[in-house]
């Protein structure tokens, strides 16, 4: 063993405490530079990070050779990229909560923006109503369509040319830009109702177009997971195919399908561009899908951001009133999306295929 230690095959390794030493050193050097040159804390942290990522491999190169140095450099870069990616997410969530939370009051949640001028307190009730109505309508269109398509793909058309074409096009449909979906809905409605037509139904059609591929994909995966034994057992009892699907296959896959639908809803509920184009903006309550402009939460945020109004004279606030409302609405929207994701996860857990019984 002792001979191995001095043989040219075994290169010396960096001691275990090397990373810690380099980290402390990097922070110290960066801190010193920051004091001398007057950098802010963010710049200091960035410099410290870069120093660490570079210095450790350099040391390793001197002691361990180039291969180990490359390995350490890549390890540092991979960890570094993970840390960097966490920054915008944390920043965004902290920002939304800090700026949005003070806005959330009973008044904010229970009034509309009707007759609200300047810094008067307004609310998002009309936007909430619009979001719920439009999203529900989209779900009512997309779920039957998506579900039946998935059933066709798995139960009837398996392996056929049509099924392959549909699968491929559904994949492509996933990539339709949301604003194009909005333009499609608009082009469709404008053709029938004239160029000035704006209503919630257009938004619902656009969202349904965006939702359908997600529903098809998830339902397809779930139906594929249903064991064939169950279907064959049902056929053996003389049950017709459609009853087998409705009574045996669907209940088995139900949990997964519902999870997929809820995730699809959470995906489209935050869509802005298609609704901006089709449903427009409105300060008042409007629950009618087929007439009049209808505001949804994302469009409300966009609108408040674009026309924030002036900062009231003599007020402490540095943000115009629209920004504050936009942050409040953004917090509500994020909470809704997170709750939907959570629900999807819980349903997925509850209905997860049981192993053994």
């Amino acid at each position: 063993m002792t001979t191995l230690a001095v043989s040219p095959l075994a290169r010396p390794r960096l001691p275990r405490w090397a990373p810690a030493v380099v980290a402390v050193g990097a922070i110290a050097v960066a801190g010193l530079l920051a004091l001398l040159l007057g950098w802010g804390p963010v710049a200091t942290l960035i410099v410290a990070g870069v120093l660490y990522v570079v210095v450790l491999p350099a040391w390793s190169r001197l002691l361990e050779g180039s291969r180990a140095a490359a390995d350490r450099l890549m390890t540092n870069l991979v960890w570094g990229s993970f840390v960097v990616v966490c920054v915008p997410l944390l920043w965004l969530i902290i920002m939304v909560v800090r700026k949005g939370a003070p806005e959330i009051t009973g008044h904010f949640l229970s009034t509309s923006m009707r007759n609200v001028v300047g810094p008067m307190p307004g609310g998002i009730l009309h936007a909430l109503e619009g979001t719920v109505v439009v999203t529900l309508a989209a779900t009512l269109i997309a779920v039957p369509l998506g579900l039946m398509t998935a059933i066709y793909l798995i139960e009837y058309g398996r392996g056929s040319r049509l099924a392959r074409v549909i699968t491929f096009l559904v994949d492509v449909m996933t990539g339709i830009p949301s604003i194009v979906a909005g333009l499609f809905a608009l082009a469709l409605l404008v053709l029938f109702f004239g160029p000035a037509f704006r209503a919630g139904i257009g938004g619902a059609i656009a969202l349904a177009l965006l939702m359908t591929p997600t529903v098809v994909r998830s339902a397809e995966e779930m139906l594929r997971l249903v064991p064939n034994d169950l279907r064959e057992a049902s056929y053996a009892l003389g049950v017709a195919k459609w009853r087998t699907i409705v009574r045996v296959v669907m209940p088995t896959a139900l949990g997964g399908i519902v999870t997929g639908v809820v995730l699809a809803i959470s995906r489209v509920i935050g869509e802005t561009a298609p609704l901006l184009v089709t449903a427009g903006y409105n300060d008042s309550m409007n629950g009618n899908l087929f007439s009049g402009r209808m505001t949804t939460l994302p469009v409300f945020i966009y609108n408040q951001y674009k026309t924030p109004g002036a900062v009231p004279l003599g007020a402490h606030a540095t943000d115009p009133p629209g920004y504050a409302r936009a942050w409040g609405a953004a917090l509500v929207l994020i909470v809704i999306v997170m709750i939907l994701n959570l629900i999807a996860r819980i349903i997925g857990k509850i209905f997860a295929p049981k192993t053994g019984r």
Partner: protein
Amino acid sequence: MSLTTRPPGRPLALGDRIFAGAARTAGLLILVVLAGVFVFLLIQGAPGLSVDPSTYGQGVTSFWAYVGPLLFGTIFISILALIVAVPFALGVALFISHYAPRRLATPVAYVIDLLAAVPSVVYGLWGGIALSQALKPVIAWLGAKLDWIPLFQGPASPNGQTALTAALVLGVMILPIITAISREVFAQTPRLNEEAAIGLGATRWEVIRLAVLPHAKSGVVAGIMLGLGRALGETMAVTMVYSSSPKYMIDIIGDTSPQTIAANIANNYAEATPDKQHVLIAAGLVLFAFTFAVNFLARWAISRGERKLTR
């Protein structure tokens, strides 16, 4: 087959036929809808190709002269976003599949999915208010010190709401897509290839370079293309973050920067005349055709990669 006994035959057979028909109709309907997207955009967009030139804007004589700078802007901003996103996306994907301790990998994957769940309008809000504030000194520095690079020729915008900011926001938005797909193909590397590399004494990075990356190449390319498809069609992050104008230019820290098709539609929709509406729909059709091509290529790359695996 005719011997199969089906208890009280007829009504069930009818139900079967109806149900099968409904399922098939739904499938066909999807084809029709996708075709319909093209057809309706074409019907409503075609008049936009030949409206009175003044509709396009000052000094623009034809539709193609109108949409050209927009298409350029769309591709330009999207590629900037890719440059921002791809290194980090691949880094995080490798982190999840090969570097992170197993206990950390699952929550990290979940957090990245969370990044994808945040609505684009919230990203726009964050980019337009928070990120642009924070980038002010960076942009001022770029404009002062690096103005010999055409990208940063400036003059630097004082409010931080620039194309650079938008590219960063877009990069954050498309990162989860690229990460999700890359991480899957990284994880699918045949165990034996990796173990063979380890057996030859490869370091972890060498294992990745020799066994994982060659195997995952087509999947990663497909993931990047899908990310590009998303970036091309993204509206809010661009509309909300910087003020843009439909011009060919590559300065990304100035007060105005090249406009994208999606942002152009969103900005002009509210006060569009019927003629302008046709023009905007035609522009949307161009965007659709372009993203369709990109996504098509991406899916093709994925399916080709899968076929190569099964062989």
